């Protein structure tokens, strides 16, 4: 720990004792690393150093220091400019707009905590909204595959401690989940895998020679869009049948070699990503991957796992499943029951078909990540962004409401890519006057109840619970 001399705002030199906070969770990717160490200033307001995180996580913590972080909501004026307004006005506008809409859409939650996701559930039910999260544009096909075919999986520690054959199908953790391979999947020395990467066979299935493929022992550089055929070939071979000489651009001998490697392993771990979910067939690619995993369990132990993109994108899937029974694309407009059918109730489809007349973008950036036509459709209606940062969505919004950054200046429960809940800490004191997602949604809910003259439905947990104050140890 360093004793550093920090220039204070008044220009006087002061000596301060920065605090080192350990076992901090990183709010970036689905690896949800919780071994980060953050050195914060004595007053709990500035991040000084970040240890152990990858470059993206490091920057995320440092970005919290950015003095241009918005601290008040901004509303679009008739002349097109944005003007700061109070939180009360923003809450009122949001409540009124959602209540007035025939079918509002609330989308996002890639980067919020579960407490916020729970709070929005109340708001969505009251507003008769469609409640959706980033899985709709990301691992939604994985959900569809789970619905149809199940999901034989495990926690990441099982992969670390046992897996000796690791398959990366359509994913590239070296880029998208930078510490995944060192914490969980290729390099760690686990309980039964003391030799680390030296006793693991790595298979990469990717049409490109990605950085993960370069680490692999076998790289299947298959024809893009034909993963389903390759899965079918593996399954056919495992059942003892013959296959054509070439499938999806891969020679039969290569396929037989891969099937043997998987059969002979003690524990096969299949990680998959957008290569499966975003090529032709989408959910069917994941579906047949699950069938293959199940088939492998006749020969050895095998598990499969979706490489969820964000540190808590599994969160809304969990929270809304226990509250409504569905993980995403939840149409609450009937009031009496929830209806889900991706393809109809999914965000981009709703936007493209002009079925929504109000859009709330929470903890994500639909402006950047949606097809531009979908953005144009929702832009015809009131567009509200709830996010700590300026982003493309906020810049085209009618209202931008900043909130605290979950994992940095707001703690809470997050669900890692393997659905393990981790209690994240806040490392900084929250920006003055800026609420958390949870507090904001509760305010919006209360306002909606006042406007509709109805009693708020609080469960016991909410009645007198103080929101967890930032745990700055």
């Amino acid at each position, binding site marked *: 720990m360093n004793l550093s001399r920090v220039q204070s705002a008044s220009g006087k030199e002061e000596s301060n004792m920065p605090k080192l906070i350990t076992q901090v969770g990183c709010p970036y990717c689905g690896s949800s690393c919780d071994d980060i160490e953050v050195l914060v200033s004595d007053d709990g307001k500035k991040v000084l150093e970040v240890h152990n995180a990858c470059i993206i996580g490091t920057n995320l913590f440092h970005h919290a220091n950015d003095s241009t972080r918005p601290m008040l909501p901004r509303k679009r004026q008739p002349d097109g400019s944005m003007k700061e307004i109070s939180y009360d006005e923003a809450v009122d506008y949001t409540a009124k707009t959602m209540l007035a809409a025939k079918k509002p859409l609330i989308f996002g939650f890639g980067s919020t905590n579960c407490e916020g996701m729970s709070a929005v559930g109340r708001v969505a039910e009251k507003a008769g909204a469609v409640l959706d999260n980033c899985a709709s544009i990301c691992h939604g096909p994985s*959900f569809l595959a789970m619905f149809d075919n*199940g999901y034989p999986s495990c926690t990441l520690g*099982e992969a670390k401690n046992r897996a000796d054959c690791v398959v990366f199908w359509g994913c590239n953790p070296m880029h998208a989940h930078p510490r995944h391979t060192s914490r969980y999947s290729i390099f760690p020395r686990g309980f039964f895998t003391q030799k680390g990467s030296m006793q693991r066979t790595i298979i990469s299935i990717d049409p490109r020679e990605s950085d993960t493929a370069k680490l692999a022992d076998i790289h299947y550089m298959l024809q893009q869009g034909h993963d389903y055929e390759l899965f079918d070939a593996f399954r056919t071979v495992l059942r003892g049948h013959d296959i054509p000489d070439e499938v999806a651009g891969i020679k039969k001998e290569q396929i037989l070699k891969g099937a043997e490697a998987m059969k002979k392993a003690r*524990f096969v771990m299949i990680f998959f990503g957008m290569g499966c979910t975003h090529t032709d067939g989408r959910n069917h690619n994941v579906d047949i991957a699950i069938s293959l995993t199940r088939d492998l369990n006749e020969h050895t132990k095998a598990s499969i796992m979706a490489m969820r993109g964000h540190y808590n994108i599994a969160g809304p899937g969990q929270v809304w499943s*226990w509250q409504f029974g569905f993980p995403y694309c939840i149409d609450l407009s009937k009031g*009496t029951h929830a209806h889900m059918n991706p393809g109809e109730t999914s965000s981009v489809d709703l936007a493209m078909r002009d079925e929504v007349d109000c859009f709330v973008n929470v903890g994500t950036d639909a402006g950047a990540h949606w097809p531009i036509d979908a953005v144009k459709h929702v832009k015809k209606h009131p567009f509200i962004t709830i996010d700590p940062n300026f982003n493309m969505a906020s810049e085209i919004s009618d209202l931008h409401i900043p909130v605290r950054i979950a994992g940095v200046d707001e703690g809470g429960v997050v669900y890692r890519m393997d659905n393990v809940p*981790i209690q994240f800490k806040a490392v900084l004191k929250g920006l003055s006057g800026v609420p958390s997602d949870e507090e904001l949604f509760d305010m919006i809910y209360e306002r909606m109840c006042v406007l509709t003259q109805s009693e708020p439905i609080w469960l016991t947990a909410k009645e007198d619970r103080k929101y967890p104050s930032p745990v700055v140890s």
Partner: protein
Amino acid sequence: MSEIIVKGGFVIDPTRKIDGDVADVAIKDGKIVDKVSSGAKIIDAKGKIVMAGGVDVHAHVAGPKVNVGRLFRPEDKLFKSPMAQDGFRMESGFSVPSTFKTGYDYARMGYAFVMEAAMPPLFTAHVHEEIHDTPIIDEAALPVFGNNWFVMDYLKKGEIENTAAYIAWLIRVTKGFGIKVVNPGGTAAWAWGLNCLTLNDPVPYFEITPSEIITGLLKANEYLGLPHSMHIHQNDLGNPGNYQLTIDSLKLAEGVKPKNKFGREQVMHSTHIQFHSYGGDSWANFESKAKEVMDYVNKNKAITCDLGCVTLDETTTMTADGPFEHHLNSLNHLKWCNVDVEMETAAGVVPYVYDKNIKVCGIQWAIGLELGLYAKDPNRTFISTDHPNAGPFIRYPRVIKWLMSKKAREATLDTFKYKDKVIAATNIHSIDRELTLYEIAQMTRSGPAKCLGMSNIYGGLAPGMNADVGVFDLNYKNMPSDPEKIEQAFLRAAYFIKSGEIVVRDGDILGHGHKKTIWVNVKMPENPQVMRDITQSFTKDYTVGIDNYPVHDYLAPHPFVINVDVEA
């Protein structure tokens, strides 16, 4: 707080041996009292029966595998539950209901307390999040220990004190209730795709047998003096011929004495015993061994059990018996989810249709009821459906109907395509016994409360106990000849008072109450070796940090803590 008087009902309270006397029940400040002032709110219970709030000793209602059941079964919601009472949260799901529906439906049936049957410690924050999102009912959760690496390691070395110290630490940091054991050793073997199907199959690497795990945990439980006994789901669940292993497992409790300050008299609670009472050696000659199993349970006061009755519905099976679920998938080919949990346990989830046109399902149905009908001590035999494994908990009133009415049992038997084969393989057709309301109250109130070590709080209407009071539309002196009315009465209580608040009237929810999360604070002197082993394991083997493992207080916002000071 308010005063309430439940006037003139037929009180059924086994804790005070009251069986149908017309009496008043007085409530003040959330507790049962001797009497109240004339200003008390009057609830007219004339012509109706009055019982304490129900106590469910085993149901899967909160946690990761329950949520997998919800998440991966959209079809469990479609057209099955279009329901939202005005002013209350939306209700979803038939066999795996949402947390809101869970709370509301249990309250409608007059249940006060539900035990979440299996909590994987790594996921404790998830379990508590679901618990605090479940309205009205008090809940607790049982962490699983039967496949835990630390437990297997210490028990192999014969270190009971260290085992107990680890268990104490874990129950504290997970805000758990007691010791749950599921398929001991077998689920740890499943992490390599294997299983332990006899009591003497050693677990790969750990080289400890299920018999040693059971014996060790029996001792650890009594060493700690926990309110509840060791709660076990035996090996070889669901396979024809497993009844002998079940009896052998129960025999391991012989000679173990209960040691606790909570009035608990059993040392082993055997759960969903229906799934463990199978005879024959294949599905072809599959038959009931309920009589043999209950003969043993009846003779041994140190055993309690819950039935796990099959309700003949399309439901969802979910259990920490990972290898069993994989096996089930190979039988019915329905979608299979699995989660192996590092260091601790596993879980599997598979939908299942208990079809009355399938002989085996008919026999399973009969076995569950036979176990209840053969019970000599209803205070040690509890009603359950291992929700949702053998059926959803909203079928408890149907199970009560079957136990109380031979006519209802026969009517159901008549609907079976293979009625004669079911009769040939079971005893259900020849059993005339019909349980009484008093016995039902023992099986759903006083018995489970005592088994959990909470007989001073739940399960009865004695002054001092929690004011959890159910009024049901059944006339003790003039019981209906139509058994359907029994089911209807228990499904929608005329009134349910929870902790002194009227939360249900005529089956409609009136309020969310003030539920509590119950957990046991097991205090032992610090054990440096165990703490060092734990810390080291988190550094090397786990993938989460030890600081982030204990569940924070705010996730169990209204706790009711039972303190246990472990004597050295």
